[in-house]
């Protein structure tokens, strides 16, 4: 069954090392899909392939039915795939609101790039709701470089959503966050619009179970198991994998 994102037989080799070996992955519209596995399983590599920063030696990646194998990160972002990295990257000298506007531009305002008219109004219209959703209205006019780490993480999510993506790729979003911040992150992710599908790579199984509809387990570059969180939680195969590997 074809979904929104359809990766088939993806293989990535570095010399004699197979980081990914014939991996299939399917993410449907609006689905919350988690990717887990022990260290070295190939999760980040798969995310790199899906995001466009790594080209696989074999395999195809289709998005909304079209082969996107040739597109880099920019092209995929224009199609509606946005990736959020571990380290929040924002435009430091631009204000929070400007950050959101820039992120939205390729997909939301495709033309009239040169018109200076009503820039404040347009920025407000575009960025206001998202910043409010993320609780950043108070810092809308603050240069992003001055924001705290947690605020930057929120801004990055706002930026990722600004482009009205169809798929978000999240790479260990909880890394480096305190317990309180993780709680807030979970709230944010749970509140994401249902129109957006999410592929989440995460080490913390509690987050995975709280946030996802489907889970795929990778091990040594291959798919070990796939199913609902309950199925995965009780699967003896998965337990074995985590016991054996350095989880």
């Amino acid at each position, binding site marked *: 069954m074809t979904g929104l994102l359809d990766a088939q037989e993806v293989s990535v080799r570095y010399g004699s090392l197979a980081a990914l070996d014939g991996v299939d992955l399917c993410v449907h519209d609006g689905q919350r899909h988690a990717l887990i596995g022990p260290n070295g399983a190939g999760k980040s590599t798969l995310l790199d392939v899906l995001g466009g920063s790594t080209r696989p030696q074999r395999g195809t990646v289709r998005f909304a039915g079209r082969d996107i194998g040739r597109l880099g990160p920019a092209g995929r972002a224009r199609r509606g795939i946005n990736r959020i990295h571990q380290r929040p990257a924002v435009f430091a000298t631009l204000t929070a609101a400007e950050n959101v506007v*820039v992120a939205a531009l390729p997909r939301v305002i495709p033309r009239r790039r040169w018109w200076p008219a009503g820039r404040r109004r347009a920025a407000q219209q575009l960025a206001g709701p998202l910043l409010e959703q993320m609780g950043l209205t108070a810092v809308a006019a603050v240069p992003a*470089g001055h924001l705290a780490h947690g605020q930057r993480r929120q801004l990055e999510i706002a930026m990722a959503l600004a482009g009205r993506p169809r798929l978000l790729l999240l790479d260990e979003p909880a890394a480096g966050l305190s317990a309180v911040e993780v709680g807030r992150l979970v709230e944010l992710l749970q509140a994401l619009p249902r129109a957006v599908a999410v592929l989440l790579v995460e080490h913390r199984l509690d987050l995975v179970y709280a946030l996802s509809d489907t889970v795929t387990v990778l091990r040594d570059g291959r798919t070990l198991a796939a199913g609902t969180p309950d199925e995965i939680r009780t699967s003896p195969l998965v337990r074995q994998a985590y016991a054996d590997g350095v989880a």
Partner: protein
Amino acid sequence: MSGEVIRRARGAVAALVLVGLVVAPWVVDDYTTALLARTLALALVGVSVALLTGVAGMPTLGQTAPYAAGAYACAVVGSRVSDVGVVQLVVAAGAGALLAALIVPLVVHARGVIVLMITLAIGELVVVVLGRWRSVTGGTDGLAGVPAVRPFWGLPALASDQGRYLYALVVVATLVGAVLVLLRTRAGLVLRAGRDDETRLRASGHRVAVHLSGAHIAAGAIAGAAGSVLVVAQQYISPADFGFDTSALLLLGVVIGGTASVGGALVGAALVIAVRDWLFGVLPGHAPLVLGALFVATVYLLPTGVNRARSRLSEAAAPQPDPPAAQERATVGEVGR
């Protein structure tokens, strides 16, 4: 709000300076007026340097190339085709933009110091070409005897230093205004974002190369237009006007003025040119020595100005968590301010 106060203060200062520039020809002598006109042309080139160096994050030592292209195109057109100022201006801007467009593929994929090297080499090579292409450029003797300019159809030719100066002022002020407007557009926003974090910009889906190319071509057009102002102001051009020294001086001026600030670039460029002219007048033999020392001193004295870690220039791969944005003079082309 101190930010508001600063903004109003800067606006007031800018207005004062503009008024001062307008009344200048009636206050100072002819020679100084002509000098001011020439300084205006160079300050406009400084704006194009700021556009690339500060706003787009691509430092350049080669804006003298489109500047020269514009100047020579204007001189040739002025001598043989039309003496209407607007026509010459458009031709000059077009020549600058065309040259920039030709150079763009060579620099658009390069970053940081490589761009400095390539643009420097190109700027120098253009000067070499200017010196040897005698048939068109008159070689090292330059071009003189360009007929007086009529600013617009129906207006009389500019016959006095005052007239030429006011023409230069109008052109430069208009173009600077256009640049300020352009910087407030979404394109300006995207350029600044790319300067901050190009990878992030790409990750949002922007075609970075397209924006950078656009910035180069726009900067080339501005520098080309400045070339036509130079022809009117000086009534004579030679390869010496477009040497590497000029590039370096303008870059220094832009850096002093705050790199990404258009107003700062104007002031900085004018200041540096004025100091150079003054030094050459006062110490004809040793001016370069003093000027060189001033370069070194300025670099030492302006650590934030020169050493601001622009993502494209700094060697660190990661963007600084807390850039000295507080010390940074607020840019003129800001959205939402």
